[in-house]
């Protein structure tokens, strides 16, 4: 199969969805410029022009409501935020209006807004430009939240979101944009709420999302070299969450390590651990381990930034720990990120 970069896959999914549904339009700050949101809106701009790829003023709060109003009246806005951190300003309309619209108004119609948020990563993005709000959005019924880890999912989950009749938040980690892999030519909808086994294993389960899936794979590879068979589960969807897949895997391996780019407290790593404690607690043969950033905002200085960001090395060590193995093991940093240079 032909391969695409993660960013190109988003662009292709956008164009194909817009071809299939004339009510879809892209909107966001500078979505129409030469950078095209890291190349993800460029194809749509080329193909459909500014009437369907709309630059907007700096007004996250109102625009989220505007998108809801447009969606409730038959348009399909695909709103893009160059950093999901900016979505704090959009939260009222997203959580109090979009997420609740169908329910609160008696199930007579919805507000199927789709919002993309780019999660910053590396190069000193810092405290307010590298947060991932997936667990915040994931807390609220009425929303669907997806965090694609592969180019195929970046396209497939977006296609699904744009076909549905319900609001969806898509969070994409900037650190994945240059990852290249096979992507179906056709707009194949990836089911929302189904995780995937990225790598099969028998000794320990590593559950991850988005960028951490890549780190989990690298960890699993390194562990294999040490004779440890790690299974890697990509949840893909934060809400709904694929409880069954997670529990099956842990029931098999008896050991769980959860990886997240966001903090442990009240985050994805907490929810995954809770799902296991609810359903397969007796399968656990070791304490659950969470591999997440420490309890501080994201620092800029790169040695701190590298210490802050959880990676394959931390995951591999956590896996060895829950297996009670004292072996020593060092996983090199991801080339992809080391080759990444600024401004950003």
């Amino acid at each position: 199969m032909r391969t695409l970069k993660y960013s190109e896959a988003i662009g292709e999914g956008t164009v194909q969805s817009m071809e299939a549904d004339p009510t879809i339009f892209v909107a966001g700050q500078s979505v129409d410029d030469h950078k095209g949101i890291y190349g993800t809106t460029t194809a749509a701009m080329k193909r459909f022009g500014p009437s369907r790829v709309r630059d907007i003023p700096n007004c996250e709060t109102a625009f989220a409501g505007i998108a809801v109003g447009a969606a409730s009246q038959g348009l399909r806005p695909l709103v893009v935020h160059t950093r999901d951190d900016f979505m704090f300003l959009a939260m009222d309309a997203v959580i109090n209006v979009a997420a609740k619209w169908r329910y609160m108004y008696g199930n007579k119609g919805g507000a199927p807004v789709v919002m993309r948020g780019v999660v910053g990563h590396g190069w000193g993005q810092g405290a307010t430009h590298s947060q991932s709000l997936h667990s915040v959005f994931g807390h609220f019924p009425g929303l669907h939240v997806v965090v694609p880890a592969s180019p195929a999912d970046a396209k497939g989950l977006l296609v699904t979101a744009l076909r549905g009749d319900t609001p969806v938040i898509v969070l994409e980690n900037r650190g994945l944009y240059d990852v290249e892999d096979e992507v179906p030519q056709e707009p194949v909808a990836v089911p929302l709420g189904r995780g995937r086994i990225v790598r099969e294993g028998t000794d320990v389960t590593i559950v991850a999302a988005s960028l951490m899936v890549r780190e989990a794979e690298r960890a699993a590879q390194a562990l294999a070299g040490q004779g440890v068979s790690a299974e890697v589960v990509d949840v893909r969807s934060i809400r709904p969450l694929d409880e069954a897949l997670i529990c099956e895997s842990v029931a098999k391996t008896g050991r769980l390590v959860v990886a997240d780019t966001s903090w442990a407290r009240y985050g994805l790593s907490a929810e995954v651990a809770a799902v296991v404690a609810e359903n397969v607690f007796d399968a656990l043969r070791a304490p659950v381990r969470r591999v997440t950033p420490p309890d501080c905002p994201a620092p800029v200085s790169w040695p701190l930034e590298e210490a802050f960001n959880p990676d394959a090395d931390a995951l591999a060590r956590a896996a060895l720990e829950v297996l009670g193995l004292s072996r020593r093991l060092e996983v090199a940093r991801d080339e992809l990120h080391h080759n990444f240079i600024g401004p950003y």
Partner: protein
Amino acid sequence: MTDDPEELLRAMVRIRNVEETLADVYRDEQEMRTPVHFSIGQEASAVGVCAALRRSDLVYGGHRCHAQYLAKGGDLDAMVAELYGRETGCTRGRGGSVHLIDVEAGFGAASAILGEMISVATGAAWALATAGRDDVVATFFGDGAAEEGVFHESLNFAQLHRLPVIYVCENNGYSLASPLAARQPEGTRITDWAARYGMPSVSADGNDVTAVRSAAAEAVAWCRAGRGPYFLELETYRWREHVGPHWDYDVDHRSKAEVDSWIARCPIVRATDALRPALPDIDRRRARWDTEDREELATAIKAAKASPFPAVDTLLDGAYGALGV
């Protein structure tokens, strides 16, 4: 859509009768378990604006939305049933008093968080314009909601894209117990806030239904012609407490004298007096209307009480729409 003064009066009377009776019942029965914000004393703005709209136009409102809903033709039975939390309510008992909706009547939605529907209505106008429809949107909000940043962002966007939306600010001088002087700089005119974006911005006497009607007609013509948004400030006054059925003068923030001075400017009395020369029997008509309204509401209340509460096993209905696959 009407400019017949008698029809305008009739519409105000009906809303007044409905709200005053609902207030009494709400207070005495304690069966409508949802916070209610009555528009008693403010009927002219909703009636005057909606009289300039046609059914396919859309209206959005805030927490104080009963009058707007009824003026736009919202179903009374469904509203009353909603207050009683019944399955036959306009949101099937899910949203309550502050989340009225009647898609058929063109009442787009109301919501309780200040300013939300200023942006949502702007987006709805965008959708109508994109679809090439010549319908317009009117969104009602108060002087307090105009202080929210979303107001600024929405008006800038609407004027930038010349969207057919009428921003209707019902300025009743208060936000909860807080007077304008505590919230907006001396000399503020909210019409200036809107005018700076380049849209027509007009203030009218919110207690004079014909004045409101004609101001709104100009706004509608402007929007329908595709010339962009329009801002309308309507000065009026809330008679009852902010939320709930009671009177609240002489507690601390406003005097009985102030309330009375506004009761003396009752939009209904005013419209009635204006009609009397032409309709000497207006008071008899009014008496008949009151009876009609009492009966209509009594029937609605009876129907509401007779209808079922939502079944508990439907608790999750509508939490999500259909998925893409």
